[in-house]
Protein backbone atom coordinates (compact mmCIF):
# COMPACT_ATOMS: atom_id res chain seq x y z
CA UNK A 1 0.00 0.00 0.00
CA UNK A 2 1.30 3.45 -0.87
CA UNK A 3 0.29 6.37 1.30
CA UNK A 4 -1.65 9.01 -0.61
CA UNK A 5 -1.04 12.67 0.12
CA UNK A 6 -4.41 14.37 -0.29
CA UNK A 7 -6.16 17.59 0.57
CA UNK A 8 -8.20 17.24 3.75
CA UNK A 9 -11.37 17.47 1.68
CA UNK A 10 -10.31 14.64 -0.61
CA UNK A 11 -8.97 12.52 2.24
CA UNK A 12 -12.31 12.67 4.05
CA UNK A 13 -14.43 12.32 0.92
CA UNK A 14 -12.44 9.31 -0.26
CA UNK A 15 -12.31 7.38 2.98
CA UNK A 16 -15.29 8.30 5.16
CA UNK A 17 -18.79 7.38 3.99
CA UNK A 18 -22.23 7.56 5.56
CA UNK A 19 -22.93 4.73 7.96
CA UNK A 20 -19.30 3.93 8.77
CA UNK A 21 -17.76 3.39 12.21
CA UNK A 22 -15.22 6.15 12.62
CA UNK A 23 -12.79 6.90 15.44
CA UNK A 24 -11.27 10.38 15.59
CA UNK A 25 -8.84 9.67 18.44
CA UNK A 26 -6.39 11.72 20.46
CA UNK A 27 -6.73 12.06 24.21
CA UNK A 28 -7.06 15.81 24.91
CA UNK A 29 -3.91 16.25 22.79
CA UNK A 30 -3.84 15.97 18.96
CA UNK A 31 -7.60 15.76 18.53
CA UNK A 32 -8.31 15.83 14.77
CA UNK A 33 -10.69 18.82 14.84
CA UNK A 34 -10.05 19.87 11.25
CA UNK A 35 -10.97 16.40 10.00
CA UNK A 36 -14.15 16.29 12.09
CA UNK A 37 -15.23 19.72 10.91
CA UNK A 38 -14.58 18.70 7.30
CA UNK A 39 -16.91 15.71 7.86
CA UNK A 40 -19.52 18.22 9.06
CA UNK A 41 -19.01 20.28 5.90
CA UNK A 42 -19.44 17.13 3.82
CA UNK A 43 -22.67 16.41 5.76
CA UNK A 44 -21.78 12.83 6.65
CA UNK A 45 -24.73 10.97 8.21
CA UNK A 46 -25.40 7.87 10.31
CA UNK A 47 -21.84 7.56 11.53
CA UNK A 48 -21.00 5.44 14.56
CA UNK A 49 -18.56 7.74 16.30
CA UNK A 50 -15.95 6.23 18.60
CA UNK A 51 -13.81 8.23 21.03
CA UNK A 52 -12.86 7.81 24.67
CA UNK A 53 -13.70 11.46 25.26
CA UNK A 54 -16.17 12.86 22.71
CA UNK A 55 -14.87 16.35 23.53
CA UNK A 56 -15.95 19.41 21.56
CA UNK A 57 -15.39 17.74 18.20
CA UNK A 58 -18.09 15.11 18.71
CA UNK A 59 -20.30 17.68 20.42
CA UNK A 60 -20.16 19.51 17.09
CA UNK A 61 -20.62 16.41 14.94
CA UNK A 62 -23.50 15.09 17.06
CA UNK A 63 -25.13 18.52 17.14
CA UNK A 64 -24.88 18.78 13.35
CA UNK A 65 -26.54 15.40 12.87
CA UNK A 66 -23.58 13.34 11.62
CA UNK A 67 -23.98 10.52 14.15
CA UNK A 68 -26.46 7.78 14.81
CA UNK A 69 -24.40 6.13 17.52
CA UNK A 70 -21.65 6.96 20.00
CA UNK A 71 -19.09 4.69 21.65
CA UNK A 72 -17.35 6.50 24.51
CA UNK A 73 -16.18 6.58 28.12
CA UNK A 74 -16.30 10.20 29.31
CA UNK A 75 -18.51 12.80 27.65
CA UNK A 76 -17.81 16.12 29.30
CA UNK A 77 -16.04 19.37 28.48
CA UNK A 78 -12.87 18.75 30.51
CA UNK A 79 -12.58 21.11 33.45
CA UNK A 80 -15.61 23.10 32.25
CA UNK A 81 -18.80 21.02 32.44
CA UNK A 82 -21.29 19.47 30.09
CA UNK A 83 -21.17 18.85 26.38
CA UNK A 84 -24.52 20.51 25.74
CA UNK A 85 -25.06 19.11 22.25
CA UNK A 86 -24.30 15.58 23.37
CA UNK A 87 -26.71 16.02 26.31
CA UNK A 88 -29.40 17.40 24.02
CA UNK A 89 -29.05 14.39 21.72
CA UNK A 90 -29.30 11.89 24.57
CA UNK A 91 -31.88 13.75 26.66
CA UNK A 92 -34.08 15.09 23.83
CA UNK A 93 -33.04 13.25 20.65
CA UNK A 94 -32.02 16.54 19.04
CA UNK A 95 -31.23 16.73 16.16
CA UNK A 96 -31.76 12.97 16.08
CA UNK A 97 -31.76 9.97 18.37
CA UNK A 98 -28.34 8.74 19.42
CA UNK A 99 -27.60 5.17 20.47
CA UNK A 100 -24.83 4.91 23.04
CA UNK A 101 -22.36 2.13 23.82
CA UNK A 102 -20.78 3.37 27.03
CA UNK A 103 -17.70 2.18 28.91
CA UNK A 104 -15.04 3.23 31.35
CA UNK A 105 -11.67 4.54 30.13
CA UNK A 106 -10.06 1.24 31.07
CA UNK A 107 -12.75 -0.57 29.12
CA UNK A 108 -12.29 1.56 26.00
CA UNK A 109 -8.52 1.04 26.23
CA UNK A 110 -9.05 -2.72 26.40
CA UNK A 111 -11.46 -2.63 23.46
CA UNK A 112 -9.06 -0.64 21.26
CA UNK A 113 -6.13 -2.83 22.31
CA UNK A 114 -8.05 -5.97 21.41
CA UNK A 115 -8.90 -4.49 18.01
CA UNK A 116 -5.29 -3.46 17.47
CA UNK A 117 -4.17 -6.97 18.36
CA UNK A 118 -6.52 -8.79 16.02
CA UNK A 119 -8.40 -10.36 18.93
CA UNK A 120 -12.21 -10.48 19.10
CA UNK A 121 -12.25 -9.41 22.75
CA UNK A 122 -10.11 -8.16 25.59
CA UNK A 123 -10.20 -8.71 29.33
CA UNK A 124 -9.95 -6.59 32.43
CA UNK A 125 -10.65 -6.62 36.12
CA UNK A 126 -13.50 -4.22 36.56
CA UNK A 127 -17.13 -3.38 35.79
CA UNK A 128 -18.27 -5.58 38.69
CA UNK A 129 -21.09 -3.80 40.47
CA UNK A 130 -21.24 -0.95 37.99
CA UNK A 131 -24.39 0.15 36.23
CA UNK A 132 -22.47 -0.08 32.95
CA UNK A 133 -22.35 -3.85 33.25
CA UNK A 134 -26.11 -3.85 33.81
CA UNK A 135 -27.11 -1.36 31.09
CA UNK A 136 -24.67 -2.44 28.38
CA UNK A 137 -25.09 -6.21 28.37
CA UNK A 138 -24.52 -6.43 24.62
CA UNK A 139 -20.94 -5.25 25.09
CA UNK A 140 -19.98 -6.56 28.52
CA UNK A 141 -19.58 -10.23 29.48
CA UNK A 142 -18.08 -12.25 32.29
CA UNK A 143 -15.33 -14.74 31.59
CA UNK A 144 -13.57 -17.17 33.92
CA UNK A 145 -9.80 -17.61 34.01
CA UNK A 146 -9.18 -21.20 32.87
CA UNK A 147 -6.24 -21.48 35.29
CA UNK A 148 -7.46 -19.81 38.48
CA UNK A 149 -11.24 -19.76 38.06
CA UNK A 150 -11.26 -16.02 38.80
CA UNK A 151 -14.07 -14.11 37.07
CA UNK A 152 -13.02 -11.27 34.81
CA UNK A 153 -14.83 -8.92 32.45
CA UNK A 154 -14.63 -9.41 28.69
CA UNK A 155 -15.31 -6.59 26.23
CA UNK A 156 -15.59 -6.85 22.45
CA UNK A 157 -12.84 -5.45 20.24
CA UNK A 158 -13.32 -2.13 18.46
CA UNK A 159 -12.20 -2.17 14.82
CA UNK A 160 -13.20 1.13 13.23
CA UNK A 161 -13.77 1.29 9.50
CA UNK A 162 -11.64 4.42 9.62
CA UNK A 163 -9.48 5.91 12.32
CA UNK A 164 -8.45 9.53 11.91
CA UNK A 165 -5.51 10.94 13.87
CA UNK A 166 -3.74 14.25 13.97
CA UNK A 167 0.06 14.12 14.37
CA UNK A 168 2.98 16.50 14.44
CA UNK A 169 4.90 15.22 11.43
CA UNK A 170 4.88 12.99 8.40
CA UNK A 171 7.81 12.41 6.10
CA UNK A 172 7.54 12.28 2.33
CA UNK A 173 7.18 8.51 2.37
CA UNK A 174 4.19 8.71 4.71
CA UNK A 175 5.72 7.68 8.03
CA UNK A 176 4.00 9.53 10.87
CA UNK A 177 5.43 10.77 14.18
CA UNK A 178 3.36 11.38 17.31
CA UNK A 179 5.04 13.07 20.25
CA UNK A 180 3.67 13.74 23.71
CA UNK A 181 0.41 12.46 25.11
CA UNK A 182 -0.83 9.73 22.78
CA UNK A 183 -3.78 8.34 24.73
CA UNK A 184 -5.10 5.30 22.89
CA UNK A 185 -4.30 6.76 19.46
CA UNK A 186 -1.87 4.06 18.44
CA UNK A 187 -4.28 1.31 19.40
CA UNK A 188 -7.11 3.06 17.55
CA UNK A 189 -4.82 3.35 14.53
CA UNK A 190 -3.76 -0.28 14.53
CA UNK A 191 -7.33 -1.44 15.15
CA UNK A 192 -8.69 0.36 12.09
CA UNK A 193 -9.25 -1.03 8.63
CA UNK A 194 -8.21 2.34 7.22
CA UNK A 195 -6.03 5.03 8.80
CA UNK A 196 -6.08 8.68 7.74
CA UNK A 197 -3.76 11.17 9.40
CA UNK A 198 -3.68 14.95 9.37
CA UNK A 199 -0.31 16.46 10.26
CA UNK A 200 1.10 19.82 11.23
CA UNK A 201 3.89 19.49 8.69
CA UNK A 202 5.42 17.21 6.08
CA UNK A 203 9.19 17.05 6.43
CA UNK A 204 12.17 15.42 4.74
CA UNK A 205 13.15 13.34 7.72
CA UNK A 206 11.15 12.75 10.91
CA UNK A 207 12.59 14.27 14.06
CA UNK A 208 12.14 10.91 15.80
CA UNK A 209 14.30 9.40 18.53
CA UNK A 210 14.82 5.63 18.26
CA UNK A 211 11.90 4.54 20.43
CA UNK A 212 9.50 7.27 19.29
CA UNK A 213 5.87 6.60 18.40
CA UNK A 214 6.18 6.24 14.65
CA UNK A 215 3.40 4.77 12.51
CA UNK A 216 4.99 3.21 9.43
CA UNK A 217 3.86 4.52 6.05
CA UNK A 218 2.45 1.16 4.99
CA UNK A 219 -0.18 1.46 7.74
CA UNK A 220 -1.28 4.92 6.63
CA UNK A 221 -3.81 5.13 3.82
CA UNK A 222 -3.85 8.91 3.43
CA UNK A 223 -2.16 11.98 4.85
CA UNK A 224 -3.37 15.55 4.69
CA UNK A 225 -1.13 18.42 5.75
CA UNK A 226 -3.32 20.63 7.96
CA UNK A 227 -1.42 23.14 10.09
CA UNK A 228 -3.41 23.88 13.22
CA UNK A 229 -5.50 20.77 12.53
CA UNK A 230 -5.85 19.94 16.21
CA UNK A 231 -7.09 23.40 17.27
CA UNK A 232 -8.67 24.11 19.79
CA UNK A 233 -6.93 21.07 21.24
CA UNK A 234 -3.18 21.19 20.80
CA UNK A 235 -0.12 19.83 19.07
CA UNK A 236 2.84 19.71 21.43
CA UNK A 237 5.72 21.71 19.99
CA UNK A 238 3.39 23.68 17.70
CA UNK A 239 0.66 25.36 19.76
CA UNK A 240 -1.05 25.04 23.11
CA UNK A 241 -4.54 23.94 24.01
CA UNK A 242 -6.89 26.92 23.75
CA UNK A 243 -8.36 26.51 27.21
CA UNK A 244 -10.14 29.86 26.83
CA UNK A 245 -11.95 28.52 23.79
CA UNK A 246 -12.94 25.36 25.65
CA UNK A 247 -14.42 27.58 28.35
CA UNK A 248 -16.17 29.78 25.76
CA UNK A 249 -17.68 26.70 24.09
CA UNK A 250 -19.90 26.20 27.13
CA UNK A 251 -21.89 29.30 26.19
CA UNK A 252 -21.73 28.76 22.44
CA UNK A 253 -23.18 25.26 22.63
CA UNK A 254 -25.72 25.84 25.38
CA UNK A 255 -28.62 26.74 23.06
CA UNK A 256 -29.50 25.10 19.78
CA UNK A 257 -29.77 28.43 17.97
CA UNK A 258 -26.46 29.84 19.18
CA UNK A 259 -24.78 26.57 18.32
CA UNK A 260 -26.25 26.46 14.81
CA UNK A 261 -25.37 30.08 14.19
CA UNK A 262 -21.77 29.46 15.27
CA UNK A 263 -21.46 26.32 13.13
CA UNK A 264 -23.00 28.10 10.13
CA UNK A 265 -20.62 30.98 10.44
CA UNK A 266 -17.37 29.25 11.33
CA UNK A 267 -17.60 25.74 9.89
CA UNK A 268 -20.20 25.55 7.13
CA UNK A 269 -19.34 29.12 6.17
CA UNK A 270 -15.62 28.42 5.73
CA UNK A 271 -14.11 26.34 2.95
CA UNK A 272 -11.26 24.81 4.90
CA UNK A 273 -9.43 24.73 8.20
CA UNK A 274 -7.27 27.75 7.47
CA UNK A 275 -10.40 29.84 6.87
CA UNK A 276 -11.90 28.34 10.02
CA UNK A 277 -8.87 29.36 12.08
CA UNK A 278 -9.01 32.90 10.69
CA UNK A 279 -12.74 33.05 11.23
CA UNK A 280 -12.50 32.20 14.96
CA UNK A 281 -9.50 34.48 15.40
CA UNK A 282 -7.06 31.66 16.08
CA UNK A 283 -4.69 32.41 13.23
CA UNK A 284 -2.07 35.07 13.09
Amino acid at each position, binding site marked *: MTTEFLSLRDAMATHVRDGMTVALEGFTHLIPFAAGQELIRQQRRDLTLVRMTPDLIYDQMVGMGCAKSLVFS*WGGNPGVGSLHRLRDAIEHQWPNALTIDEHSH*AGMAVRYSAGASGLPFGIL*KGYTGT*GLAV*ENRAHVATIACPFTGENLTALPAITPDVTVLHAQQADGAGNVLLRG*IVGASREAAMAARCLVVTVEEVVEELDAPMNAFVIPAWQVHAIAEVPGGAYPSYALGF*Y*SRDNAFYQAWDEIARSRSDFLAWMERHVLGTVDHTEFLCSV*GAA*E
Partner: protein
Amino acid sequence: MTAPAWTPDEMMTVAAARRLRDGAVCFVGIGLPSAACNLARMTHAPELVLIYESGTVGARPTVLPLSIGDGELAETARSVIPLPEIFTQYLQRGRVDIGFLGAAQIDRFGNLNSTVIGPYAQPTVRLPGAGGAPEIAAHAREVLVVMKQSARTFVEQLDFCTTPARPSALITDLGVFEPDPATRELCLSAVFDGVAKEDVVAACGWPLRIADRLGTIAPPTADELEILRDLQARTRDAHAARVRIRLPF
Protein backbone atom coordinates in the same frame (compact mmCIF):
# COMPACT_ATOMS: atom_id res chain seq x y z
CA MET B 1 -17.90 36.63 64.47
CA THR B 2 -15.94 37.70 61.42
CA ALA B 3 -16.12 35.78 58.16
CA PRO B 4 -13.26 33.31 57.85
CA ALA B 5 -10.39 34.38 55.66
CA TRP B 6 -10.85 31.41 53.37
CA THR B 7 -13.62 29.82 51.30
CA PRO B 8 -15.14 26.40 51.94
CA ASP B 9 -13.61 25.27 48.63
CA GLU B 10 -10.18 26.29 49.82
CA MET B 11 -10.67 24.50 53.11
CA MET B 12 -11.82 21.38 51.27
CA THR B 13 -8.77 21.44 49.01
CA VAL B 14 -6.41 21.98 51.93
CA ALA B 15 -8.02 19.18 53.95
CA ALA B 16 -7.74 16.81 51.02
CA ALA B 17 -4.11 17.78 50.37
CA ARG B 18 -3.17 17.08 53.97
CA ARG B 19 -4.23 13.46 53.63
CA LEU B 20 -1.59 12.75 50.96
CA ARG B 21 1.62 11.36 52.41
CA ASP B 22 4.89 12.20 50.74
CA GLY B 23 6.09 9.62 48.23
CA ALA B 24 2.64 8.15 47.60
CA VAL B 25 1.64 7.34 44.03
CA CYS B 26 -1.53 9.24 43.26
CA PHE B 27 -3.95 8.72 40.40
CA VAL B 28 -5.31 12.22 39.89
CA GLY B 29 -8.66 13.27 38.50
CA ILE B 30 -9.20 16.74 37.08
CA GLY B 31 -10.59 19.62 39.13
CA LEU B 32 -10.39 19.61 42.89
CA PRO B 33 -8.36 16.37 43.14
CA SER B 34 -5.74 17.88 40.86
CA ALA B 35 -5.65 21.07 42.95
CA ALA B 36 -5.30 19.07 46.19
CA CYS B 37 -2.55 16.84 44.83
CA ASN B 38 -0.53 19.73 43.50
CA LEU B 39 -1.01 21.71 46.69
CA ALA B 40 0.30 18.71 48.63
CA ARG B 41 3.26 18.43 46.25
CA MET B 42 4.04 22.13 46.71
CA THR B 43 3.81 21.93 50.51
CA HIS B 44 4.45 18.85 52.65
CA ALA B 45 4.76 16.14 49.96
CA PRO B 46 7.37 17.19 47.38
CA GLU B 47 7.90 13.58 46.26
CA LEU B 48 4.23 12.82 45.67
CA VAL B 49 3.97 10.97 42.35
CA LEU B 50 1.12 12.24 40.18
CA ILE B 51 -0.31 10.01 37.48
CA TYR B 52 -2.88 11.52 35.15
CA GLU B 53 -4.87 9.07 33.05
CA SER B 54 -3.73 10.74 29.84
CA GLY B 55 -0.45 8.89 30.24
CA THR B 56 1.73 11.33 32.19
CA VAL B 57 3.65 9.66 34.99
CA GLY B 58 5.32 11.86 37.60
CA ALA B 59 3.90 15.15 36.31
CA ARG B 60 4.96 18.33 38.16
CA PRO B 61 2.77 21.05 36.65
CA THR B 62 3.30 24.67 37.69
CA VAL B 63 -0.29 25.57 36.78
CA LEU B 64 -3.31 23.31 37.15
CA PRO B 65 -4.31 21.67 33.91
CA LEU B 66 -7.84 22.43 32.66
CA SER B 67 -8.00 19.08 30.93
CA ILE B 68 -6.48 15.81 32.01
CA GLY B 69 -3.96 16.06 29.20
CA ASP B 70 -2.70 19.64 28.95
CA GLY B 71 0.76 20.11 27.46
CA GLU B 72 2.00 21.27 30.86
CA LEU B 73 1.54 17.72 32.16
CA ALA B 74 3.53 16.12 29.35
CA GLU B 75 6.31 18.69 29.58
CA THR B 76 6.81 18.25 33.31
CA ALA B 77 6.31 14.48 33.48
CA ARG B 78 8.98 11.89 34.17
CA SER B 79 7.58 9.92 31.23
CA VAL B 80 4.63 9.98 28.89
CA ILE B 81 3.27 6.56 28.01
CA PRO B 82 0.29 5.17 26.13
CA LEU B 83 -2.97 5.44 28.06
CA PRO B 84 -3.71 1.71 27.97
CA GLU B 85 -0.51 1.06 29.95
CA ILE B 86 -1.63 3.52 32.62
CA PHE B 87 -4.74 1.47 33.19
CA THR B 88 -3.16 -1.98 32.85
CA GLN B 89 0.45 -1.81 34.03
CA TYR B 90 0.01 0.87 36.65
CA LEU B 91 -3.56 0.86 37.94
CA GLN B 92 -4.76 -2.72 37.40
CA ARG B 93 -1.36 -4.14 38.38
CA GLY B 94 -1.77 -2.50 41.77
CA ARG B 95 0.98 0.13 41.50
CA VAL B 96 -1.22 3.06 42.60
CA ASP B 97 -1.45 4.00 46.27
CA ILE B 98 -4.20 6.60 46.21
CA GLY B 99 -7.04 7.23 43.81
CA PHE B 100 -8.80 10.55 44.05
CA LEU B 101 -12.40 10.83 42.87
CA GLY B 102 -15.34 13.21 42.68
CA ALA B 103 -18.89 12.57 41.45
CA ALA B 104 -22.37 14.04 41.08
CA GLN B 105 -23.98 11.72 43.66
CA ILE B 106 -22.66 9.67 46.56
CA ASP B 107 -24.40 7.23 48.87
CA ARG B 108 -23.69 6.44 52.49
CA PHE B 109 -21.12 3.76 51.61
CA GLY B 110 -19.25 5.92 49.15
CA ASN B 111 -20.64 4.51 45.92
CA LEU B 112 -20.61 7.14 43.20
CA ASN B 113 -22.77 8.29 40.32
CA SER B 114 -21.31 10.38 37.53
CA THR B 115 -23.46 9.01 34.71
CA VAL B 116 -27.11 10.11 34.79
CA ILE B 117 -29.83 11.74 36.86
CA GLY B 118 -33.04 9.87 36.14
CA PRO B 119 -33.27 6.53 34.34
CA TYR B 120 -30.30 5.50 32.20
CA ALA B 121 -32.34 5.11 29.01
CA GLN B 122 -34.16 8.42 29.45
CA PRO B 123 -32.10 10.63 31.69
CA THR B 124 -33.26 14.01 32.90
CA VAL B 125 -29.60 15.00 33.14
CA ARG B 126 -26.93 13.22 31.20
CA LEU B 127 -23.63 13.54 33.11
CA PRO B 128 -20.18 12.93 31.57
CA GLY B 129 -19.93 9.28 32.61
CA ALA B 130 -17.37 6.95 34.13
CA GLY B 131 -13.98 7.99 32.76
CA GLY B 132 -11.33 6.30 34.84
CA ALA B 133 -13.36 6.17 38.05
CA PRO B 134 -14.58 2.55 38.28
CA GLU B 135 -11.12 1.06 37.86
CA ILE B 136 -9.46 3.69 40.05
CA ALA B 137 -11.87 2.69 42.82
CA ALA B 138 -11.32 -1.00 42.15
CA HIS B 139 -7.53 -1.02 42.01
CA ALA B 140 -6.01 1.86 43.98
CA ARG B 141 -4.94 0.76 47.46
CA GLU B 142 -6.87 3.65 48.94
CA VAL B 143 -9.62 5.87 47.56
CA LEU B 144 -10.37 9.45 48.59
CA VAL B 145 -13.51 11.24 47.49
CA VAL B 146 -13.95 15.02 47.44
CA MET B 147 -17.42 16.48 46.88
CA LYS B 148 -19.27 19.61 47.84
CA GLN B 149 -22.04 18.67 50.17
CA SER B 150 -25.78 19.01 49.57
CA ALA B 151 -28.82 16.93 50.49
CA ARG B 152 -29.50 16.65 46.75
CA THR B 153 -26.19 14.96 45.95
CA PHE B 154 -25.55 13.03 49.16
CA VAL B 155 -28.40 10.60 48.53
CA GLU B 156 -30.19 7.60 50.00
CA GLN B 157 -30.21 5.90 46.60
CA LEU B 158 -28.01 6.61 43.61
CA ASP B 159 -29.77 7.09 40.27
CA PHE B 160 -26.98 5.00 38.74
CA CYS B 161 -23.96 3.27 40.22
CA THR B 162 -21.05 4.38 38.07
CA THR B 163 -18.41 3.45 40.58
CA PRO B 164 -18.74 1.02 43.46
CA ALA B 165 -16.31 2.55 45.95
CA ARG B 166 -15.34 2.17 49.57
CA PRO B 167 -13.40 5.38 50.19
CA SER B 168 -11.12 5.67 53.21
CA ALA B 169 -12.30 9.27 53.50
CA LEU B 170 -14.84 11.63 52.00
CA ILE B 171 -13.82 15.26 52.19
CA THR B 172 -16.64 17.77 51.74
CA ASP B 173 -16.76 21.54 52.01
CA LEU B 174 -17.98 21.13 55.60
CA GLY B 175 -15.89 18.34 57.05
CA VAL B 176 -14.53 14.83 56.72
CA PHE B 177 -16.44 11.52 56.66
CA GLU B 178 -14.79 8.21 57.44
CA PRO B 179 -16.17 4.69 57.25
CA ASP B 180 -17.39 2.87 60.33
CA PRO B 181 -14.96 -0.06 60.63
CA ALA B 182 -17.82 -2.55 61.07
CA THR B 183 -20.55 -1.37 58.69
CA ARG B 184 -18.39 0.65 56.24
CA GLU B 185 -21.02 3.39 56.42
CA LEU B 186 -19.53 6.86 56.07
CA CYS B 187 -19.84 8.81 59.34
CA LEU B 188 -18.91 12.39 60.07
CA SER B 189 -15.53 12.19 61.80
CA ALA B 190 -14.47 15.83 61.79
CA VAL B 191 -15.81 19.24 60.91
CA PHE B 192 -13.93 22.22 59.59
CA ASP B 193 -13.17 24.96 62.02
CA GLY B 194 -16.30 27.08 62.44
CA VAL B 195 -18.74 24.53 61.01
CA ALA B 196 -21.61 23.24 63.19
CA LYS B 197 -22.34 19.54 62.96
CA GLU B 198 -26.03 20.36 62.49
CA ASP B 199 -25.15 22.09 59.22
CA VAL B 200 -23.39 18.95 58.04
CA VAL B 201 -26.38 16.79 58.94
CA ALA B 202 -28.74 19.16 57.13
CA ALA B 203 -26.64 19.02 53.97
CA CYS B 204 -26.71 15.22 53.81
CA GLY B 205 -29.54 13.26 52.21
CA TRP B 206 -29.18 10.23 54.40
CA PRO B 207 -29.51 10.14 58.22
CA LEU B 208 -25.92 10.99 58.97
CA ARG B 209 -24.19 9.21 61.81
CA ILE B 210 -21.64 11.19 63.74
CA ALA B 211 -18.50 9.77 65.32
CA ASP B 212 -18.41 9.62 69.11
CA ARG B 213 -15.34 11.80 69.14
CA LEU B 214 -15.95 14.41 66.50
CA GLY B 215 -12.75 16.12 65.50
CA THR B 216 -12.12 19.59 64.20
CA ILE B 217 -9.93 20.26 61.21
CA ALA B 218 -7.51 23.10 61.70
CA PRO B 219 -7.99 26.02 59.33
CA PRO B 220 -5.63 26.52 56.41
CA THR B 221 -2.24 27.83 57.43
CA ALA B 222 -1.04 31.05 55.89
CA ASP B 223 1.40 29.00 53.84
CA GLU B 224 -1.22 26.62 52.52
CA LEU B 225 -3.52 29.47 51.58
CA GLU B 226 -0.84 31.49 49.87
CA ILE B 227 0.47 28.58 47.83
CA LEU B 228 -3.04 27.47 46.83
CA ARG B 229 -4.11 30.98 45.85
CA ASP B 230 -0.93 31.57 43.86
CA LEU B 231 -1.50 28.28 42.07
CA GLN B 232 -5.12 29.16 41.30
CA ALA B 233 -4.18 32.63 40.10
CA ARG B 234 -1.43 31.29 37.83
CA THR B 235 -3.92 28.77 36.53
CA ARG B 236 -6.60 31.39 35.79
CA ASP B 237 -4.10 33.55 33.93
CA ALA B 238 -2.77 30.64 31.93
CA HIS B 239 -6.21 29.51 30.84
CA ALA B 240 -7.58 32.94 30.02
CA ALA B 241 -5.15 33.53 27.19
CA ARG B 242 -6.46 32.71 23.72
CA VAL B 243 -4.14 30.70 21.49
CA ARG B 244 -2.94 32.10 18.18
CA ILE B 245 -1.47 29.75 15.60
CA ARG B 246 1.13 31.00 13.17
CA LEU B 247 0.09 29.46 9.87
CA PRO B 248 2.88 28.66 7.41
CA PHE B 249 0.95 29.96 4.40
